[in-house]
C-alpha cells in the first residue's frame, strides 16, 4: 500500500493521477448524461435501460470498482496537492491582482469538494434510496424498477431540483478548467491544436451540464410527465 501511494510524494505524478482519474470520471459523466436523456423517450425506454444496466452483473461491478477507485484517488490526491500547495505559499500578498487566472480555475478545490458532497447525497438519494425509502417500492407494469417515476417524483420537489441544478452549475465551473488542465498535465499542448482543444472542452462541459439540468427543468415544465398524465392526455 505504501508503494501504491508513493506517487503522492511527486508533484507531477500527483497531477498525472488527478488528470487520469479526472478523465475517467469525465467519460463516466458523458455516459451518465446520455443515459439520462432517455427520460425524454418515455418510461418504457428509460426503465428498460435501467434494467439493462442492472442486468450487466459482473461488468457493472467492474465499472463501479473503476469509478470508485478513480473517485478515491482523485479526492486523496487533491487533498495532498491542496495541503502542499498551501504550505508552499505561507504568506499572502497584501495586494494581489490576477492577470490571467480565471475564477473557475482558482476555485477548483472548492467546486470539487462541493461536488463530492453532492455526489454523496446523490448516491444516498437515488442509488441507496436512503433519503427516500419510498422509491424502493416503485415498479412499472413489467415489474421492473420504475426509474422513470422515481426521477419525476424527485424533481417535483422544488428543493431537490434546485440543489441538483446548483450542483450541476458548479460541476460546469469545475469541468471548464478541468478538461484543458488535464490535457496540459498529460503533456498535450500544441499551438496547432490548442484552439480546437479549448473549444472541444468548453462544448463538452457545456453539453454535460445542460443535459443534466434539462431533466429537472423538463419535469418542471411537464415535458417529462408521469405515465398517467401521458395516457390521460393522449385520450
Amino acid at each position, binding site marked *: 500500500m505504501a508503494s501504491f501511494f508513493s506517487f503522492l*510524494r*511527486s*508533484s*507531477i*505524478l*500527483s*497531477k*498525472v493521477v488527478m488528470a487520469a482519474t479526472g478523465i475517467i470520471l469525465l467519460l463516466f459523466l458523458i455516459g451518465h448524461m446520455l443515459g439520462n436523456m432517455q427520460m425524454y423517450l418515455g418510461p418504457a425506454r428509460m426503465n428498460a435501460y435501467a434494467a439493462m444496466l442492472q442486468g450487466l452483473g459482473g461488468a457493472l461491478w467492474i465499472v463501479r470498482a473503476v469509478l470508485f477507485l478513480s473517485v478515491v484517488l482523485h479526492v486523496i490526491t487533491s487533498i495532498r*496537492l491542496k495541503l*502542499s*500547495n498551501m*504550505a*508552499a*505559499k*505561507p*504568506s*499572502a*500578498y*497584501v*495586494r*494581489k*491582482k*490576477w*492577470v*490571467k*487566472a*480565471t475564477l473557475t*480555475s*482558482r476555485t*477548483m478545490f472548492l467546486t470539487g469538494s462541493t461536488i463530492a458532497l453532492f455526489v454523496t447525497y446523490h448516491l444516498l438519494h437515488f442509488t441507496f434510496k436512503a433519503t427516500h425509502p419510498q422509491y424502493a417500492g416503485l415498479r412499472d407494469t413489467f415489474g421492473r424498477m420504475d426509474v422513470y417515476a422515481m426521477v419525476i417524483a424527485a424533481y417535483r420537489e422544488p428543493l431537490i431540483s434546485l440543489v441538483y441544478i446548483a450542483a450541476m452549475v458548479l460541476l460546469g465551473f469545475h469541468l471548464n*478548467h478541468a478538461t*484543458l*488542465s488535464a490535457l*496540459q*498535465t*498529460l*503533456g*498535450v*499542448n*500544441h*499551438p496547432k491544436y490548442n484552439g480546437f482543444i479549448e473549444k472541444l472542452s468548453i462544448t463538452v462541459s457545456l453539453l454535460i451540464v445542460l443535459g443534466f439540468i434539462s431533466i429537472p427543468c423538463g419535469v418542471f415544465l411537464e415535458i417529462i410527465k408521469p405515465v398517467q398524465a401521458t395516457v390521460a392526455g393522449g385520450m
Partner: protein
Amino acid sequence: MRLTLHIWRQKNAREKGRMVTYELDGVSEDMSFLEMLDMLNEKLMRNGEEPVAFDHDCREGICGACSLAVNGIPHGHEPLTTICQLHMRKFRDGDAIYIEPWRARAFPVIKDLVTDRSALDRIIAAGGYISVHTGGVPDANAILIGKEEAERAMDFAACIGCGACVAACKNSSAMLFVAAKIAQFAYLPQGQPERKRRALAMVAKMDEEGFGACSNLYECEAVCPKGISVSAIALMNRDFIRAKLTEVPQKTTAGGG
C-alpha cells in the same frame, strides 16, 4: 509627480514584516521604477532612516535580479517588462503603489524586498546543464541544428530566472522556470543524452525545495517578463512521465560489487 508608496519593511528573515507608507514628491515621469526607489532611499537616508533594501543589478531587463510585486503583480502591470524596465510614466500623479517582495516558502525574505532565490540555483545544479569535455573550442557548425529548433530553444532560453512565475502562482510553483530550463535543451542535440535524467533530477529537486504543484492557471505565463509559454510545462511533463515509465529502478543492494 507625487506618489503614496506602501512598502513591505522587514528587518531580517526572523522578524515579522509590515507595510509602511511613504509620501514621495517630485518623481519624474522619465525615471525607472527603481530610480524612483533610489530617490526614496536618498530621502530616507537624509532623514537618518534605514533605506529600503531591494534587489537589482543590470537594470536593463536581462539579469533577473530585480524582483518586486507592484500593486499585486510581479514586475508590475506592464506585460513583458521587468520592474527595472518599467517607467514612472506608466503611473499617474497621486497614485498609491503597493510594493511587496516575492512571496513563497522557497523564497524566504532576507530583508525588506530582498528574497533568497538560491532554491532556483540548486534546481539548476541538479540537472540544468549539459556535460561537455573541456578543451578546444568546438567548430561552430560541427553540429547542425535546424532553424526552427534553434528558435524554439532560444525562446525558452530567454528565461532570466527572476522567479516572477513562482511569485505570481497561488501555489508558489516553480514549474514554468524548471520547464523553461528543461525545454531549452530538449530541442537541441546537445541536450539529448541527459534528457531523461535531467527531467527526473530537476523535478525531484523542485519538489524538495518546497515549491507547490502547477494548477494550470497560467498566471506565470502572464507575468513572465520574457513571455515563456506554458507549453514548456507540457513538455516537461512529457519528459518526466516518459523518464518515469522507462526508469530503471536503482536498488542499492548491500555488499554488491
